[in-house]
């Protein structure tokens, strides 16, 4: 794969929320392909390219923990915005103190993954693959990002770097740090997992039967996945 990239991400907490249990959140066991795409796009993205996740290697054993947080209960209604636009003085605001919900979450602890991905061109313009590849790798090595990438939820910040970079488990990095630790399930069926949203198709959610195969989850292609 000419345009292939690989990067390592890690963090103390992660919550890749299952859609059916996204109110009282329960995380998937493993990072979803769309979460991986989100991290890559935070580092480098242009309208000319589309990132496709090829593989997610699980480096740390899967551990869960419970937390409870106060979260906002409602979104800002569209009507508030339209009203403000019309009269120019109405406030556009929402206060967590007056409209909150306590929500429980079953989240992942101390995760570490290697993401492998490649990009495709969305159109005929700006099709210099070497350029995009170089920009991505340069930004990755320097730790640059457009916005801070996260592990499923905004508040769970993702640390990232090249695949063999130093991390909390292997402070010296190197090839050793790219191999799964003991305790990572070698083969495991994960059930139906969110692949991504099909933005070309009315933002339909697409699912694929995820499984850990020799420590790696390989997402299906969007065309194959079920809507």
């Amino acid at each position, binding site marked *: 794969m000419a345009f292939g990239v690989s990067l390592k991400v890690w963090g103390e907490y992660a919550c890749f929320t*299952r859609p*059916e249990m996204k*109110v009282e959140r329960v995380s998937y066991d493993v990072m979803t392909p769309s979460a991986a795409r989100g991290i890559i796009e935070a580092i480098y993205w242009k309208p000319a390219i589309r990132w496709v996740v090829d593989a997610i290697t699980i480096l740390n054993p899967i*551990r869960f923990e*419970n937390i409870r947080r106060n979260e906002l209960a*409602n979104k800002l209604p569209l009507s508030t915005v339209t009203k403000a636009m019309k009269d120019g003085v109405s406030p556009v605001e929402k206060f967590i103190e007056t409209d909150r919900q306590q929500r429980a979450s*079953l989240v992942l602890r101390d995760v570490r993954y290697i993401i492998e991905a490649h990009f495709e061109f969305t159109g005929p313009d700006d099709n210099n693959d070497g350029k995009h590849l170089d920009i991505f790798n340069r930004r990755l090595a320097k730790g640059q990002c457009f916005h801070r990438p996260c592990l499923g939820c905004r508040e769970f910040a993702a640390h990232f770097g090249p695949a063999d970079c130093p991390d909390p488990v292997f402070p010296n990095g190197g090839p050793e740090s790219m191999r799964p630790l003991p305790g990572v399930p070698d083969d495991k*069926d994960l059930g*139906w997992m969110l692949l991504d*949203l099909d933005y070309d198709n009315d933002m339909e959610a697409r699912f694929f039967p995820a499984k850990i195969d020799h420590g790696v989850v390989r997402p299906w292609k969007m065309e194959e996945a079920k809507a």
Partner: protein
Amino acid sequence: MENGGGESMILQALANYYDRLVKAPDQDVPEPGFSVQKIHAEIVLDKDGNLVAMNDIQQEETIPPKTKKGKPKTKIVPRKVKVPFVEGRTSGVAAFFLWDNTGYVLGAQDKGKPERIVKQFEAFRNLAHEVLDDVEDEGARAVITFLDSREAGQTDAIEDFEEKFIGNNCVFRLDGEPDCFIHDHPAVRTAWLKHIDKSIERPTGVCLISGQADEPQARIHPVLKGVRGAQTSGAYIVSFNASAFMSYGKEYNDNAPVSERAAFAYTTALNHLLNAKKTEHQRMLLGDATVVFWSETPTRMESVLQMFIDPGAAAEDEGQEAHDGSVIGQLRTLLQAVRDGKEPPVTDLLGDEPDTPFYVLGLAPNASRLAVRFWLVSTVADIAERLAQHFDDLEMETQFDFESEFPGIWRLVLELAPARPNAEGRYTSKMDDVPPVYAGALARSVFTGEAYPESIVNRILGRFRSDGRVTHGRMALLAAHHRRALRKGRTLNIDSITKPSEVTVSLNPETKNVGYRLGRLFAVLEKAQQEALGNVNATIKDRFFGSAMATPATVFPRLLDLGQKHIAKAEYGHVMDRHIGEIMEGFEVADGTPPFPAHLSSDDQVMFALGYYHQRNALWRKKDKSPDAPQKTTGTEEAA
């Protein structure tokens, strides 16, 4: 991969459990489109649709006595029958299919307006026609002929018609088929299911439980009842009841595509587990969480796990129900075998297939919703092994006979609560005083074999300082924490303890650990005070235990000085003096450092409490109990 798979997913595992329940002959689990209802009578027809008889099918039920001395009563109750059912009848006229009250089935009713009864009977007849008109089945033909031959309100033509049937629910049966109602005929069932599928108008799509494409999607999932603390009307796992929970412009359950069928399956299975009778032992309470567990195929582990988790409650149950006492004995034997890891393994004792998948689900209420506290996928053998490990780690000598060697998880959690003396001066704790997350965290550690949460240590050390109760349960928990931490590869913040076996069950006079020796010393000094002064209002334990444990250097010189005075006063002071000398000799005083460190780490504080507990037990134990029995000290070879 297309169908089964995904055993790790909660709802999927529940849906599979539902499949198992439906196939089990002894369970009253309804299928989609069916429900268990109370039926009083059956209408028996011959093949030509003539009425043969109308029979009372009610049954006798024995009600167990409320008190021990009471006698069981019997009463007549309607029989529970699986009948075709869809929800949604309120005040209007809407008939059920092939069962209903006599107003609908026969057009005979003693209350209500006659014209309404005519409408009811017509609605019943029309529904039967709608579903059964194209069905080739003797039973179906018989019902249709029977209904067509009747006028609403006509009761006189029925022989055996008795007033007592009026208003009661009836079903149909074909003459000569004693155990099968007409709605159970396969052709009738198929027609009925086809009929409901047609009547549900929902968009189709992929179901993320079954993975099947083009299934009608559930808009609202059935309600779940039986989680303690949740609303009595029931709560939901899958629900989107505030706008912040919805994404991408999708409304309600379109946020998570689940088919009607799968939603019915998982909720029915979970409700079955949550509402099982107490005797079925597949549900328990841990803190604020309601825990259910099941295996993929029937196992004995399913029925005994609750007893493993809470042996005390099982014993109480037995006592109340006054079964033969041998059950407790059997349980004890089983628990001892589990703890000691004896051959044959527990799965052999139980007769279970060791690789059978086993699931544990902990649910806690939150508003009108249910939150998943923990979710574990394991096997019967793994669960047995982890329970063995748990009880092995907890092993600790008891102080009193009433203390259980195998404390249940809730009993351990209770040890984290403040102990307060009640009116009789006995110390008790309340579950309300413990933050509920501890129970869930502890249960998860037990089931997964992970180390206990560190917060438990701090909580107990805090309890020692505030209520001063150094109890068997607390010491068992702390010892188990150290043993598990060591096994999981954490090094304790202690120089001398490196193996789980070095955290001993009873007094280990050989260990050089400073915390442990200081704890022993403290116990001896306390004993000396008691022998000198008898019972005093505030002992040195009440006043100094916390500071001696945390900052020995500030307390011990003064305590030793005080101790000498007590010893001089006591009758057998020289015995205590010898003990003190023995313990002091054990301190390794290298290059002039004083034996009392300025402060102890929390790991060392645990060893302090352990030393105190062991030494105190050794001092106070009655000599006649086991004078020469060798004490169980597994760490001696290391220290010697």
